[in-house]
């Protein structure tokens, strides 16, 4: 991805634990989403950005490939609003501290393995081993059963999406949880993807089903409040890039450590930008 000509470089942490975050305006078209979105959710975000006049939180994207790690809905919302730019936090995706996990699907109301599922699953196995391996599996009553899915990742995830929807129709409630085993109800674990796979698929324009990946980033800037007028600026890009750096660099920045709840629970360090 072509780097912007003006940006904010934030260095936080000490010694080897220093994290470098680049906060910048980037052309909307230079970023690549990797997951499908919920259109209604994107429309709600678009409406909110249009009414408030601000993109509250920047999206998180890989500086090298431009793949969006977090913020697919914001990207789509700004596309709907015909913005030219998006505020993004550019990171090195291959940094070890950026963790790529998965969202487990938990059906707490499930009381039995449905009969139609039998053809999809293998014999019972030790759940800890299967969990560690990162394969797709169903966990029910202390036993893990691997899912028989196509070898092609995209086809496997699309098949899984259908399975997830059918289970939701059967059991109603669905809760997205961390990658851990819960003994009540039934759990569906999608396959774990590698960072390389995510980048390759997104670069080809392939969109994975929603909640196929779960990214944990060491530091996350919040409440940066980038004006929509700037995101729609039609003049020289240098001016827009520099304007963002000028506006944000003078804000007061606070940090909150060890987990934090703002609009949702953040396990990572949070940088809150305040003031004008």
């Amino acid at each position: 991805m072509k780097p912007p000509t003006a940006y904010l470089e934030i260095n936080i942490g000490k010694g080897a634990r220093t994290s470098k975050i680049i906060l910048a305006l980037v052309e909307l078209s230079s970023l690549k989403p990797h997951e499908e979105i919920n259109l209604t959710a994107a429309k709600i975000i678009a409406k909110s950005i249009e009414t408030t006049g601000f993109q509250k939180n920047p999206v998180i994207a890989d500086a090298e490939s431009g793949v969006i790690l977090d913020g697919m809905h914001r990207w789509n919302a700004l596309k709907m609003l015909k913005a030219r730019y998006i505020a993004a936090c550019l990171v090195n995706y291959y940094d070890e501290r950026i963790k790529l996990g998965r969202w487990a699907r938990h059906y707490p109301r499930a009381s039995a393995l449905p009969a139609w599922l039998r053809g999809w699953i293998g014999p019972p196995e030790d759940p800890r081993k299967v969990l560690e391996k990162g394969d797709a599996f169903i966990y029910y009553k202390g036993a893990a059963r691997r899912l028989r899915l196509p070898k092609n990742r995209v086809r496997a995830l699309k098949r899984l999406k259908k399975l997830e929807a059918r289970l939701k129709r059967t059991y109603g409630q669905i809760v997205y949880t961390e990658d851990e085993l819960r003994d009540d109800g039934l759990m569906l674990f999608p396959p774990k993807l590698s960072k390389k796979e995510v980048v390759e698929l997104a670069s080809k324009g392939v969109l994975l089903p929603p909640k196929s990946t779960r990214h944990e980033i060491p530091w996350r800037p919040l409440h940066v409040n980038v004006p929509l007028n700037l995101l729609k600026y039609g003049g020289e890009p240098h001016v827009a890039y520099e304007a963002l750096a000028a506006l944000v660099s003078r804000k007061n920045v606070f940090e909150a450590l060890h987990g934090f709840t703002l609009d949702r629970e953040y396990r990572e360090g949070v940088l809150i930008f305040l003031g004008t």
Partner: protein
Amino acid sequence: MTRQLLLSKFKVIPFDPAVLIKLIDRAVKKLAKNVLVYDWFLDEEASEVYFILEGLEPDAELFAEKIAAYLRGEGIWADVEKAGLLQKLASIRPAKAEIKVVIKGEKTGKPFLAWPDGNLQPLESETLTKLLLQSNFSLDEATQISHKVQEIFAGRNAISPKELYEKIVEIMGERSRLDELVLLKANLMPYLYVVIEDHGLIRYPTQNYLAALARQAASICGLKPTRRLIEELADHVLNYLRKEAALKARKFVLEPLYPDSVLSSSTIIFIMRKWLKEHVVFYEELRKNCSIEDVLNNLRARIHQAEHNYWTASSLAEKKALAFEVAYNSLTYLSIVSGHITSGSFEDLAEASGKIEILNLLNRTLKVRSNEEALRLLDKIVEESVSLLKRPRLE
């Protein structure tokens, strides 16, 4: 127990944000005792209110409870939420981060002033000089600073008002005086002290936003304003808000507490309507639709009278005054016919009526030295101006 920076969070019942903003603003000013409220913001999507404050934990908790009780007293359910995972108040601290602005871009022209609402305005030295003069700087100082600022930011594409303010403080160095600096801060960044609540959203008083409000005010009055009139009106209100900000800024120096003044957009529109009423030519007549024809008839009569007087007048000075009167009234006539309302200046009238050539002729008349040439031009102005009346009447 030590004073610390804390973030406190509230959950409120989804409610009209406009009312919430007003109530919270009032409550903060009333109840902030023993704690220093740095900022607060409403997340209208999540129906949550956040406070950034400094103080002892029990004082902060008490403050939060009091605000919640105040809102409940006003009939709005509010509850103090856990801001952190473990405690009632999340402990925050100024980030120990190194923040660096990296600029590799080329210079594209004049630097732009980036307003917090994202509007970009060219940084004109005249505008800056005017602001410095308004902040009690002497003319010499203001001109000197303006030039220096242009030199310093010559390689930049965009700067923020805050950066500009800091640079001026740096330029002033030891010569800086507190009073001037306080006024300058209020003039450059009135949004630090005064904000506008518009249908539940906090808006910054910037030229572009005020221009949008001015358009609203004019349409309420049933007027079709020119661009120049809108700019003039927005400027007038911005100056009014700058004065308001200066008062707040002075108070802030003495007592560093949450200083915002939240004005509603309807108040601003009211101020604008008042200004329109006082400044717009024929406002009263135009407001009453039935009298527009009368206004036009009066104007026609005055134009014909002035034209008659022009042809019979003998001195050049008298002829000049009469020709200007004919031109002015004819342009006003034409702009009213085309449905525009102007600030009354020749430029504005010429633009609204689409008759720039008459303005050019007037300017040429002022420059020519020969009396004969001046007379020829004046005759032409009168003839052309009167011919404008032959145009169709009201659209």
